[in-house]
């Protein structure tokens, strides 16, 4: 059992705003513009209107409001599809213009981090192909997966820093009749939610003020190319990444802090698929149990595929061993969608989640039994052939 070393949030002093001129890292965008000037690649600009946010060392990052090309996550779409559906639903609620492309592959980084059956050139070429596909549509990449986001930030650095790699990738792109394109900013959907949080809160129809949420920040969001993650002096004094915490606070919930905030979820890439003893133990003993002991949250909110999966699914086996678990796990997108009135099954698709979430829904004022009956009605219509698919209109029917 580890001892609590948690510092109360109120004790974190607000340091002066960081000065980008003192940043210990380079501003990769300046080098991208230089390479573009030299004819080496194309930089896709963030379309307006965009929202400016602050990153770790005080630099400004542009988050596009719309004209976004949604780079989906294979783990979200495959196993927790209410995650992706909620992201799209939020965009639709604001009338945002977006594309959900079929001309998109996974970043293939989950496989790479799990099995190493790839290499830097292939990884950069997969990234560039997706970037070029977005560029051809005129829409700007919005990355759903934290690993894709982190991996693409690394790939962007490699393309900038290694001319030989850049040449090889450009040659492959030429064989595909595509240009080498790099987006001006690599944008994660949770950054869009963070930037939109006040507007989301304005459309809130359910009261979340009695809910305590513990936050799990995704490793690949802020540990890979750390200077590109959003930090905010008003959130943790700018000492931790602000995404997720920002939206949870904006929705009026209490953030339940805990001492293993920086620990990963135990996903492990290969471990979650073929060595799950590690994932289960780490997720429950270093995260869920510590959260329960120190903050006793109603829910864990996170912002990546693997984190939702690992923290949620690992609790079943731990419960069989009488461990102190039993906290539902949602993404920030699902949490925000529920706050704005989304249906818990038609949109948030909670039936794909494992840990019991019914007490949480009751705290949100949602009659989950009635909602499930409504969803079962949809399933009957689908089964009978009355409808082939559940449409957005069906999903929002009152």
């Amino acid at each position, binding site marked *: 059992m580890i001892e609590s070393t948690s510092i109360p949030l109120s004790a974190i002093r607000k340091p002066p705003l960081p000065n980008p001129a003192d940043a210990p890292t380079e501003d990769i965008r300046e080098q991208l513009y230089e390479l573009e000037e030299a004819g080496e690649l194309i930089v896709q600009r963030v379309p307006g209107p965009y929202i400016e946010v602050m990153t770790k060392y005080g630099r400004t990052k542009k988050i596009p409001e719309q004209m976004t090309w949604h780079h*989906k996550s*294979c*783990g979200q*779409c*495959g*196993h927790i*599809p209410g995650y992706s*559906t909620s992201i*799209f639903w939020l965009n639709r609620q604001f009338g945002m213009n977006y594309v*959900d492309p*079929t*001309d*998109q*592959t*996974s970043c*293939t980084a*989950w*496989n*790479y*981090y*799990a*099995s*190493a*059956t*790839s*290499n*830097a050139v*292939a990884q950069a*070429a*997969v990234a560039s*192909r997706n970037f070029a596909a977005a560029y051809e549509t005129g829409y700007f990449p919005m990355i759903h997966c934290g690993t894709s986001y982190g991996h693409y930030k690394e790939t962007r*650095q*490699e393309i900038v820093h290694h001319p030989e*790699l850049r040449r090889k990738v450009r040659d*492959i792109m030429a064989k595909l009749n595509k240009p080498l394109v790099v987006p001006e900013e690599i944008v994660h959907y949770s950054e869009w939610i963070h930037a939109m949080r006040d507007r989301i809160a304005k459309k809130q129809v359910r009261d979340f003020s009695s809910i305590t949420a513990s936050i799990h920040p995704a*490793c690949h969001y802020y*540990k*890979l190319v*750390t200077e590109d993650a959003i930090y905010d002096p008003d959130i943790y004094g700018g000492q931790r990444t602000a995404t997720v915490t920002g939206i949870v606070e904006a929705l009026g919930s209490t953030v339940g802090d805990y001492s293993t905030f*920086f620990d990963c979820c*135990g*996903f*492990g890439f290969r471990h979650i*698929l073929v060595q799950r003893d*590690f994932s289960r*133990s*780490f997720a429950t003993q*270093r995260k869920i149990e510590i959260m329960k002991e120190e903050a006793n949250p109603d829910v864990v909110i996170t912002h990546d595929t693997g984190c939702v999966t690992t923290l949620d*699914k690992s609790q*079943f*086996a731990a419960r069989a061993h009488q461990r102190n678990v039993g906290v539902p796990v949602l993404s920030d997108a699902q949490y925000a969608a529920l706050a704005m009135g989304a249906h818990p099954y038609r*949109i948030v698709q909670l*039936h794909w989640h*494992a840990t019991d979430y019914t007490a949480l829904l009751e705290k949100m004022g949602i009659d989950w039994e009635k909602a499930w009956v409504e969803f079962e009605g949809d*399933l009957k219509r689908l*089964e009978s052939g009355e409808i082939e*698919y*559940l*449409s*957005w209109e069906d999903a929002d029917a009152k």
Partner: protein
Amino acid sequence: MSVTAPPARFTADPGATLSPHSYLDVAYEDKLALWEEVKADDRFADYLYGCYECGICVAACPSAKFYDFSPRKIAQAAAREDVELIYEQMNDDVWNCSQCFSCNRCPRENSPGGLITLLREVAVRNGLGTAKEALEGYGRVVYKIMTTGTQISPDMLQPDAFPDWGPDVEKTSDNLELWRRALPPETLHTTEMSWQVSNETLIELYLIWLHSDVMDMIAEADEGLHMIILDVMEETLEDAGYEV
């Protein structure tokens, strides 16, 4: 710094290295060649700047809490170019890393996790037996990602594959096709891939695999898997008029 000859203390007395198991049946030159391959990767210089031995990476590392594993030892062995120990790590340690990159907190700006990516890649490219073992049971995932462009398909949710995730897996698997049709985004009505990927997109992905030496890596790691993936790719590419 480069190593051109084996430091005598490593070969004469394997116990003098930190390695308890020095794979003495493998020639030093072969181990050195693998290490040189790691160093030749463009990313190597971005991942290692020496090591303070401070252990911050170990404190941050989830795998160090679970296994006999240390990112500090990985950085140390690389910084000292302890070829014997590196070879052992390449075989015995690297597959324990969970690639979370918590170790990027290193005050020396190292990335032990990044070094591990390179060590794994060289192990796979050279068909090391331990890499093949590590990839056993993983072939289906490699097949999925390389042939469909998406890794985690809904139909992977089978109760025998995830018994520890509880009875909901069976429920999902039993209702899969119906539940997928109950998803409003049109791209998600799939069961064999995470979302609908267009055929043109797959062709471009296959061309990337063929032009970036990935297929050679797969052949080293698993010959059978290589043949199956190649068959799928060839059929699609030939249908589209490409000569493979």
